[in-house]
């Protein structure tokens, strides 16, 4: 289970996230929706302690992560796919995946590369290609594959559909749902693509300007037209 308690995040003097509290039960999948600038990416970076100054508590399966450095959080079972993918451009696809496997631990053995290629059939034929030679869609697949290779307990996806063709978005939704289900991964997805979020998650939080303004199922979300209009401006 991923638990975020009384989390406040700051960039310099700017207070970005205000007293965030959220829970994603083990093996469940949750979306965080919100407009640009609501603080969605900051939330994921705060959970991994990889950017803003953070106060509050993050725990995974009941173990508080305290102030542990960002490079130790992967070993705690948290994997982040950042919004800008950040593929290592100078090494091959397979080497990128191998680097992802370094985040595994004794109780979470790394996923074999052959299994990764089964889940991501698009990547197999590209395994010898440099990361910098991939298209946007291929890079996004690789970014997710690299994160999954560490056999994470918690997967954090930051707007994975941004800039992708609809057919790739559809394929990615199927792959993410399948892998999270097979490995019992707890997923926290930050998105603006409502369709993708519905396909991959069963609970939704809505982030206003730095605060949680809604938490519920998709059915409850659909019924609350006021909050959707105010914070997402969608019909």
């Amino acid at each position, binding site marked *: 289970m991923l638990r975020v308690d009384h989390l406040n995040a700051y960039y310099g003097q700017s207070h970005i996230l205000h007293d965030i509290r959220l829970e994603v039960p083990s093996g469940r999948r949750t979306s965080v929706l919100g407009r640009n600038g609501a603080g969605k990416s900051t939330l994921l970076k705060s959970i*991994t302690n*990889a950017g803003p100054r953070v106060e509050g508590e993050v725990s995974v399966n009941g173990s508080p992560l305290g102030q542990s*450095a*960002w*490079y*130790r*959080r*992967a*070993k705690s079972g948290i*994997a*982040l796919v*950042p919004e800008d993918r*950040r593929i*290592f*451009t*100078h*090494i091959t696809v397979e*080497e990128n995946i*191998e*680097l*992802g496997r*370094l*985040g595994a631990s004794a109780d979470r053995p790394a996923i074999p590369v052959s299994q990764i290629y089964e889940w991501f059939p698009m990547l197999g034929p590209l395994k010898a290609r440099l990361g910098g030679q991939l298209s946007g869609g291929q890079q996004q697949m690789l970014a997710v594959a*690299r994160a999954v290779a*560490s056999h994470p307990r918690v997967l954090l996806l930051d707007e994975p559909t941004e800039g992708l063709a609809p057919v790739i978005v559809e394929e990615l939704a199927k792959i993410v749902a399948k892998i999270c289900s097979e490995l019992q991964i707890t997923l926290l997805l930050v998105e603006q693509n409502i369709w993708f979020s519905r396909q991959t998650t069963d609970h939704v939080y809505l982030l206003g300007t730095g605060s949680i303004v809604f938490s519920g199922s998709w059915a409850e979300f659909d019924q609350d037209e006021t909050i959707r209009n105010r914070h997402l401006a969608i019909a």
Partner: protein
Amino acid sequence: MSSQAIFVLFNGLASGMAFFLVAAGLTWVFGILKILNLAHGAFFMLGAYIAFTVGGGWPASIWSFLGVALIAAAAIGVLGYLTDQLVLKRLRDVDYHYALIATFGLMLFCEGAAKFIWGTDYQAVMPPPEVDRAVVVGGSYISVYTLFVIGIGVSVFAALEIIMHRTWAGKIMRAVSNDPWMAGTLGINVPMVLMVSVIASFALAGFAGGILVPNQALSPHVGASFVLYAFMAVVIGGLGSIRGTFLACILLGLVESANATFLSQYGGIAIYVVLAIFLVWKPTGLFPAQGAT
């Protein structure tokens, strides 16, 4: 090929490899930490003094000479660890100007320490007996020590290439160099990788000091000329690129050697002409690196 051309070739290659032995650590640490270590030459000088202190002025054999160079490498590696903990670690997240000022101060400190410990008198170290002679190649007398330096330079380059491109340690270092934030997010212990890189870079400077100390007038300023050429090679090769630096060192060595032989009345000018041409033609270097490559 005329005997003069052969002399220029071997002499140039030896100079180039000497530059490379000094430049390798410089470009490595820049590739990974993005810090231009102005004190690198000073640690090269300390390596040379340590080799002189441990091995004396008359090495008994080539093996003891190599052993002493490795001791110098280890000693400077330890100093690298201390320097990292006391100075470089504090410069990771600040503007690069601070790093330039801090490493310049460190260079002055090292030179002062060397004067304090070893004095300012010149010292000399002879090449080991096995290489302290000449052979005739194509009618030109070539010092065997020259061939030895070329061999060591090529071996160090080959070792760095294998480490960087064929081992996991190298791939991890290149990943940290390319994007430290993402590397850490994947669970790579970034501070540890940076520390190991600093130690390796300093150890290379110490090893270079131990290998190149023969035929030099050993003084607290012995690193100055080497490190000047090393900086030029790093700029021409592409900051952070070991491959580019290697090629640039060969080029600079050959140019310097040809200049000294054919245009001796204009001593040393050709190398600056080459540098100027590269700064205009390829300001980012032969291999603009994304990190240590």
